[in-house]
């Protein structure tokens, strides 16, 4: 039996966190409540963030960027007018999380805090150069997402801190924004490999490519060599195969219950080939 607390303001939240240092923080609960079925100390108090309105707001920044409250669900991210179109890479990825009911519960801040190598929102957030705003009673700090996430289920979040917002820089114009995911089935599947890609063309030629893979390493994998291999080339099966060649030298996936390392490596390269479809 554990206590469950629903602070309505950040002030109340930090008061509870100070009074109950052993408590756990729950956002959507879709990862945490599964983990608690078998975790030790399952009776530690839970502090649920779901009624903190300030954590589920989206707003435009003075510079034109967008901030997303950490407790925004993936259903809202998929369809929010501030994100659809402009941050298509993120809305596409949001639409592949779990199934519709999971997306009505699971939050983007929770996905970041869980820091799974397979977290669907993570490759897009790396490509968008998103920053994570971290709040504590003492104040606020901000870290780029690729510094905040340190390894599988490891982040720089300290006791007494929560993720409060995700800050996206102003949307840029990309000719192609694509999120591709391969799992055991199309819905309700954890990514075996995922790829987020943003490509800018001038005429026929790639002038900038940003590529990030999920589930092929301890954290999201960027591959500058593969990105560079595309620059100056038309987006074709030939140039993508060259980029895949550079990827194979970088990528070090693992065997696990969902797929073998060899399969992951092959699929990571093959997903690139979909970009010229």
């Amino acid at each position, binding site marked *: *039996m*554990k*206590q*469950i*607390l*629903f*602070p*309505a303001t950040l002030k*109340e939240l930090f008061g*509870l966190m100070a*009074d*109950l240092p052993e408590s756990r923080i729950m956002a959507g*609960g*879709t990862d945490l*409540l*599964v983990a608690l*079925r078998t975790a030790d100390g399952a009776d530690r*108090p*839970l502090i*649920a963030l*779901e*009624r903190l309105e300030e954590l589920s707001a989206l707003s435009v920044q003075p510079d034109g960027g967008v901030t997303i409250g950490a407790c925004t669900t993936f*259903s809202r991210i998929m369809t929010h007018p501030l994100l659809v179109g402009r941050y298509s890479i993120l809305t596409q990825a949001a639409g592949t999380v*779990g*199934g*519709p*009911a*999971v997306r*009505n*519960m699971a939050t983007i801040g929770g996905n970041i805090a869980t820091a799974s190598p397979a977290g669907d929102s993570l490759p897009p957030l790396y490509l968008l150069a998103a920053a994570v705003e971290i709040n504590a009673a003492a104040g606020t700090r901000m870290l780029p997402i690729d510094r905040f996430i340190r390894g599988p289920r490891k982040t720089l979040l300290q006791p007494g801190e929560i993720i409060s917002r995700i800050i996206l820089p102003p949307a840029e114009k990309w000719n192609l924004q694509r999120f591709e995911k391969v799992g055991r089935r*199309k*819905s*309700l599947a954890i990514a075996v490999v995922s790829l987020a890609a943003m490509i800018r063309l001038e005429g026929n030629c790639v002038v900038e490519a940003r590529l990030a893979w999920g589930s092929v390493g301890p954290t999201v994998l960027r591959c500058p060599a593969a990105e560079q291999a595309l620059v100056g080339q038309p987006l074709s099966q030939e140039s993508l195969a060259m980029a895949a060649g550079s990827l194979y030298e970088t990528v070090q996936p693992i065997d696990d219950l969902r797929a073998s390392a060899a399969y992951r490596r092959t699929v990571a390269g093959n997903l690139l080939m979909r970009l010229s479809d």
Partner: protein
Amino acid sequence: MSVRTLPAVTKKPVLFTLNGSTVETAVHDDRRVIDLLREDLGLTGSKEGCGTGECGACTILVNGQPKLACLMLVAQLAGREVETVEVLERTPDGQRLLTAFAEEGAVQCGYCTPGMEMASLALVRCGEALTREQIREGLSGNLCRCTGYVKIVDAVERTVKECAAP
């Protein structure tokens, strides 16, 4: 509505609406919603499949949105409107859905049916003329292991059309 709990209280009543009626329950806050429904309230329509958010059998509506009763705790329901499969026979849309599931042969073993029907109810209520592809997407979080998806989509497509007709 915000709910404040005092840290000292361990078993406080939770007030919410269930299928249109107000319910006040004093089970432990951290009891799963699926257990509250089935064990405490005797509403055994909702099923537990995987218990980890991967099958959709326990889908219920909370404030009209499909959610999973196996991944929610009772305290989260405070002030919310909850609907379970038992609500279907009491509403015109629900009755059409039940009839369509029966007549289209959308039920085989029946275990996924309550969750499937609640996900479908949310689709029917959105009031849009959904395509089969949109219906499939709307039901993509509900697994059927008798592989009856085609007939399930048939039933939902029929209900969507019936409910859109004047």
